[in-house]
């Protein structure tokens, strides 16, 4: 310690302390900063494998460097993926929307083309291009910590006008639509809120906090778990399907009885 103490008036001591302070601040910041941007760690192997998958399956629309592509008239073929984050990849590829079946008003959900491992590798590659929302971890989706009543309220106010109060989906303009939420994994719904796929707005943590998002996905899970206490739900579409049911099934039963009673008279 004597040696250190002897050199504390050395002209370079100031520089050393400054460096130490900077390193400490940066280190602490790095340690305590919100981990939202990159929660999952991907290895370089993942990134390389993801890049190969990307070039084979995605680059024809998104460009070889994921920078996005336009056709001659300036219309977007595929948007830039720099900064969309792992969450966007996990949602789009994990629900089968990407690679896209065919171009149209909107990408349809289908059986995923990539398995979980490939999806993870693609996410690793895309997240290596620039920071963006990551795949939510278990804590962010933990239904046991959720406030269902708040989730229901947030859902009705922010989501139901497009997705229907029962999550049955709804129509948007010109053939676009808000897809049904029944039977969709919590993490995919969470990712959709974070990344705003297709025609959906982005609900980042400033709009709907991480806690509210957890409440929403937990509420939807609870709705699904409760099922339909009244019997066949008719798709949760409400009065229209109920009316159709009355005019078809119920009316045929009644006509059947009326004809039967009329025929008995002969």
């Amino acid at each position, binding site marked *: 310690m004597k040696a250190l103490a002897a050199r504390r008036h050395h002209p370079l001591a100031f520089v050393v302390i400054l460096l130490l302070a900077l390193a400490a601040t940066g280190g602490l910041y790095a340690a305590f900063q919100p981990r939202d941007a990159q929660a999952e760690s991907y290895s370089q192997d993942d990134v390389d494998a993801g890049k190969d998958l990307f070039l084979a399956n995605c680059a024809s629309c998104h460009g070889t460097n994921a920078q996005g592509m336009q056709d001659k008239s300036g219309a977007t073929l595929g948007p830039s993926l720099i900064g969309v984050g792992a969450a966007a990849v996990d949602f789009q590829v994990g629900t089968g929307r990407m690679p896209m079946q065919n171009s149209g*008003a909107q990408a349809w959900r289908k059986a995923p083309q990539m398995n979980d491992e490939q999806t993870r590798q693609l996410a690793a590659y895309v997240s290596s291009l620039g920071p963006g929302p990551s795949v939510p971890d278990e804590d962010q989706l933990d239904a046991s910590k959720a*406030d*269902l*009543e708040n*989730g*229901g*309220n947030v859902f*009705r*106010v922010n989501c*139901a*006008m*497009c*997705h*229907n*109060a*029962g999550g*049955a*989906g*709804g*129509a*948007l*303009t*010109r*053939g676009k*639509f*808000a897809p049904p939420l029944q039977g969709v994994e919590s993490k995919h719904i969470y990712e959709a809120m974070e990344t705003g796929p297709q025609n959906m707005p982005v609900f980042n943590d400033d709009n709907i906090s991480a806690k509210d998002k957890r409440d929403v996905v937990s*509420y939807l899970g*609870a709705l699904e778990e*409760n099922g*339909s*206490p*009244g*019997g*066949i*739900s*008719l798709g*949760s*579409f*409400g*009065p*229209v*399907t*109920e*009316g*159709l049911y*009355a*005019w078809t*099934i*119920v*009316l045929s039963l*009644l*006509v059947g*009885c*009326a*004809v039967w*009673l*009329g*025929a*008995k*008279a002969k």
Partner: protein
Amino acid sequence: MSTTTPTRPSTEAEAPASQGSGDGRMLRLGAVGGDWLDRRVSGAGLLRFMGRKIFPDHWSFMFGEVALYSFVVLLISGTYLTMFFVPSMDEVVYNGIYAPLQGAHVSKAYESTLHISFEVKGGLLFRQMHHWSCLVFMVAIFVHMFRVFFTGAFRKPRELNWLVGFALMVLGMVAGFTGYSLPDDVLSGNGLRVVDGLMKGIPIVGTYISMLLFGGEFPGHDIIPRFFTIHILLVPAAILGLIAIHMVMLVLHKHTQYPGPGRTERNVVGFPVFPVYAAKAGGFFFLVFGIITLISATTAINAIWIYGPYDPSPVSAGSQPDWYMLWTDGGLRLIPGWEFTIFGYTVSLNILLPIVVYGGLLVFLALYPFIEQWVTGDDREHHLLDLPYNAPVRTGIGVAWLSEYLILAMAATNDLIALKLRLSINDLTWTFRIAFFLAPIIVFYVTKRLCIAMQRQKRDLALHGEETSKVVRMEDGQMLEIHEPLNEFDRWVLVQHDDYRPLKAGKGVSSLRAAATSFFFKDRVAPVAPSELREALEHAGHERHRIDELTGGDYTTPDARRH
């Protein structure tokens, strides 16, 4: 065997006297009990009259009954619900067993509906029975109404009963709408908001009407208690009263019947109420009750816990009213956002024009019997029904009306159609807009031509009989087909209908009425005249004679003869 009858008072002294054969004792007891009752209320005459009343039998006559029986189910299930429903908009914190809403601030009306659904024994079943029987009630009224329309059963002397039935249909809509609003969920609140908007769209007085109904600014604190009174007291009382009038008029007028041999304008061919219709109607009541219960026990309706407690901000995708109100939403979805301002007042054509269309459609339906009566000038009583194809223009008008109604109803579901059929909602809206103007015209014309084609075919059938597909070549090369003549009973149905002709203007006939009769009857197919029929039968007999001479009365084909 039971020794009591429902009407028998408990005077034990009479019982031993009737010990004997079981049936005789029952009859005597019934007679004594009936006599006791008759001396006090003297209903025997009325009962005998009703018991011997004859009704004709046809399955299409039974939809009025379905409406009546589903109304009984409505009353029974509704009574049960009133025991638990709290018609109040006071705010409470939900504390029931439905976890996703625990802690929510809701109205007492909403809370009690959740309580009925999840905690009251049989509550959800009764709620669903009440709602399903309402849908069935309106379906039955509609089917019944259009049965009456297409068979011309609204003609003299039944015009007033048509109006009573029409009023019942409108009251059914009011009952349905007020009931739908009571649970105070988001969906029903959205419906109320539409009604609020419709009222406010009326120039000058609109805002006052809205203030009066809601007791202030929408939604206020009064609307649910008010609707409750309307829904459980005023409207059901009015419906019951009108049903009574409807039934008394039915008995007074006697029931209509389809044309057939032996059926005339002065008789009713059928079975007496007692025992045939008493048993049938009783049985049918339980069938209707059973079907409604079965559907209610298996199929969910109006899951208000999914819609959530009413709050003016959220509107769910796929928000529609019950089916009988759909058409009133369709016009609002189709009309462009037209409005203009005059002297500081906004005139909302996008509200007013649909209201005018709805009113016009309803008024036309209500007044149709009088319009047709004015056109035909027919002042006779009609107890024999028209077969729809024998009144091509009326049938065309009815189907055109229905097509307009259906287009409005489908326009109200444009988002669901777009979603499920993967179509563009914008294209659908334009399709419905164009169809609103074109479809009734096309549908009217096609229906009318189909009816006329059927009339011609039936006319040929009456004159020439059935074609047998057996063709005989005569010696001179002429080909004759063997026709099987109809029997007189079948022919009767085909030749009995009325014939109206277009009138010329002048001689007390206005040019408007002349034009109307021309519209109705210019393409008429004349019914078979007796002379025509005689001639046709003579000709057929002559032809048959020639064929018989040639074939020796053996109509089997040479091929079949060989075997």
